[in-house]
């Protein structure tokens, strides 16, 4: 176990390192870093000060070391537009995004896993084929357009739900959350659904594929022959075995939903980190873009690491090898 953990930690550090090099090259080496990093409105004195501070007159490798050193201390530059450190600016938007992403994943698992299980166990029936084809529709609809149709139907035509913003928030430990007020929940409803739909489809397909394959395995046939009840077979023998890929995908999806929430946040004007990224791209606020990439990569790597550990904990074979050693 110790070797496994160390190995994965080293790999994760390597990925972070590689991304920092890629981002550095994109910002510093491809374009003119003076134009990219210094606001066009800066005065000559400010320019000189920035050039000296980031060492833009020094060779590339030495600039990279400065960049890396600053990054390790949490300094990823200062936003041109807001005048705040880019990292803390993004961190202040993280709760709003996480609120959406976690709710969407929750809905996707609560709906997707039972439906997928039913589809997988009733393989070939008309109902299961209909759900499977419907799920293709689920991931085919472009997210931004789906969001607009939701707004059109529920906000413009029916006037049931608000179209934008976070609504009323309640602070927990100084962090504002929407899900504790009725108004906040009403604001969350459409963005969360919009984000969840492709994931519901994914969960259904994944669970169905796993369940229909597991149901044909010898150990399930054996359990049936032994007279084990159907509920127990589904719970203990099928679900437990297909839970491993599901947990893996849920973890990976957590990271990719953070990236995909950019679209949903733009459509619903949800003040999360994705909306901040898009605004920063429009305003050419590059330090914020760089900080976003580094932070999201960090979240990604961490989640993947946790997934791997969860994998080891869930997989009976890993446990077995531990007990034997």
């Amino acid at each position, binding site marked *: 176990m110790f070797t496994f953990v160390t190995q994965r930690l080293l790999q994760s550090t390597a*990925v972070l390192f590689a991304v920092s090099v890629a981002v550095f090259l994109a910002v510093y080496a491809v374009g003119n870093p003076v134009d990219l990093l210094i606001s066009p409105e800066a005065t000559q004195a400010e320019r000189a000060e920035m050039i000296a501070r980031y060492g833009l007159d020094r060779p590339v490798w030495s600039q990279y070391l400065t960049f890396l050193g600053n990054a390790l201390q949490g300094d990823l530059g200062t936003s041109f537009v807001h005048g705040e450190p880019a990292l803390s600016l993004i961190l202040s938007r993280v709760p709003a995004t996480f609120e959406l992403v976690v709710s969407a994943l929750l809905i996707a698992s609560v709906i997707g896993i039972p439906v997928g299980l039913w589809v997988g166990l009733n393989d070939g029936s008309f109902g299961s084929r209909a759900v499977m*084809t419907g799920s293709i529709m689920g991931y085919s*609809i472009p997210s931004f357009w789906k969001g*607009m149709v939701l707004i059109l139907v529920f906000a*413009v035509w029916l006037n049931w739900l608000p179209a934008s913003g976070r609504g009323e928030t309640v602070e927990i430990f100084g962090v504002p959350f929407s899900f504790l007020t009725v108004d906040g929940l009403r604001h969350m409803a459409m963005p969360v659904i919009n984000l969840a739909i492709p994931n519901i489809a994914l969960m259904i397909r994944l669970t169905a594929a796993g369940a229909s394959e597991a149901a044909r395995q010898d150990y399930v046939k054996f359990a049936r022959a032994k007279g084990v009840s159907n509920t127990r077979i589904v719970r203990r023998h099928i679900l437990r075995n297909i839970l491993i890929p599901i947990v893996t995908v849920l973890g990976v999806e957590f990271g*990719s939903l953070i990236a995909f929430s950019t*679209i949903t946040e733009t459509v619903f004007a949800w003040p999360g980190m994705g909306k901040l*990224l898009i605004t920063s791209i429009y305003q050419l606020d590059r330090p914020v873009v760089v900080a976003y990439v580094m932070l999201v990569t960090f979240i*990604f790597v961490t989640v993947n690491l946790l997934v791997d550990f969860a994998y080891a904990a869930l997989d009976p074979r890993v446990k077995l090898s531990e007990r034997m050693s």
Partner: protein
Amino acid sequence: MTDTTQTPPRRAPIADTPQRRAMLKRLKHKPSVKGSLIALFLIVTIGLTLPFFAPQNPYDLASFSVMDNRLPPGSESFDGTKFLLGTDQQGRDMLSAIFYGLRVSLMVGLISTGLALMIGVCVGLVAAVMGGRTEAMLMRLVDFILGFPTILVALVLLAMIGRGVDKVILAIVVVQWANYARIMRSAALSERRKEYVEAAFNLGFAKPRVMFRHIMPNSLNAVLVVATVQIASAITLEATLSFLGVGVPVTEPSLGLLVASGFDYLMSGDYWISLYPGVALLVLIFSLNLVGDRLRTALDPKRS
């Protein structure tokens, strides 16, 4: 698996085999596949030919008038032109705009998929045939790229290099080639072990010749199935990037950009500017995904 007692196939055995005929027959009789193929055929035909017959040229500023702006579907202008799907904020006929938009979306989707396919297939082949350190390095790169969500990589890349049709294509190629490389490598690895490849090597053929004339044609099937789905995801990606404002330029509106341009008028109830281009996009993507899904099921050895 292939019968090894036969003479090794020199060229691609994509020829008629009973399995292949049975598979195609199964596919052809599925109504969903038939429907999707018809829809795809119509869309491609419209995208390629109809711009010439469209009621209006949306790129020609003289052919429409701001006087006709935001007319609901079915209304007529002063000179009697009928707007079946309404007009946008500049008075352009939406139907014509959709035809032209389809063309841009299809072009970006097909070109980027084609390029990504070529790069991915070559990388996968090289990795499988060379092995060793080359393979390890290439595959680490593939893992690295596939580790990130496509939208994030493309978005950040375009934020750095700016918008434009060529740049969107570049961004899609960057995020997609790795998919093909991974699949190609595993397909090519299993072909490599077969006797006809060994025979070709023993005959003294050069590596590139064996790679491209023997291994590649035999392992292309899996890659091509994935390509159907990848065209759909390339089109979605382009639409999304254009919607977010980092994709194609306003002078060449794709379907995604058309949807975006109607977003501002959605709240006032002028739904048609966003709704219809989105429907066209959805039909296109759904048909591609459906065909891809059925192809995959048909080719899955566990199912047949």
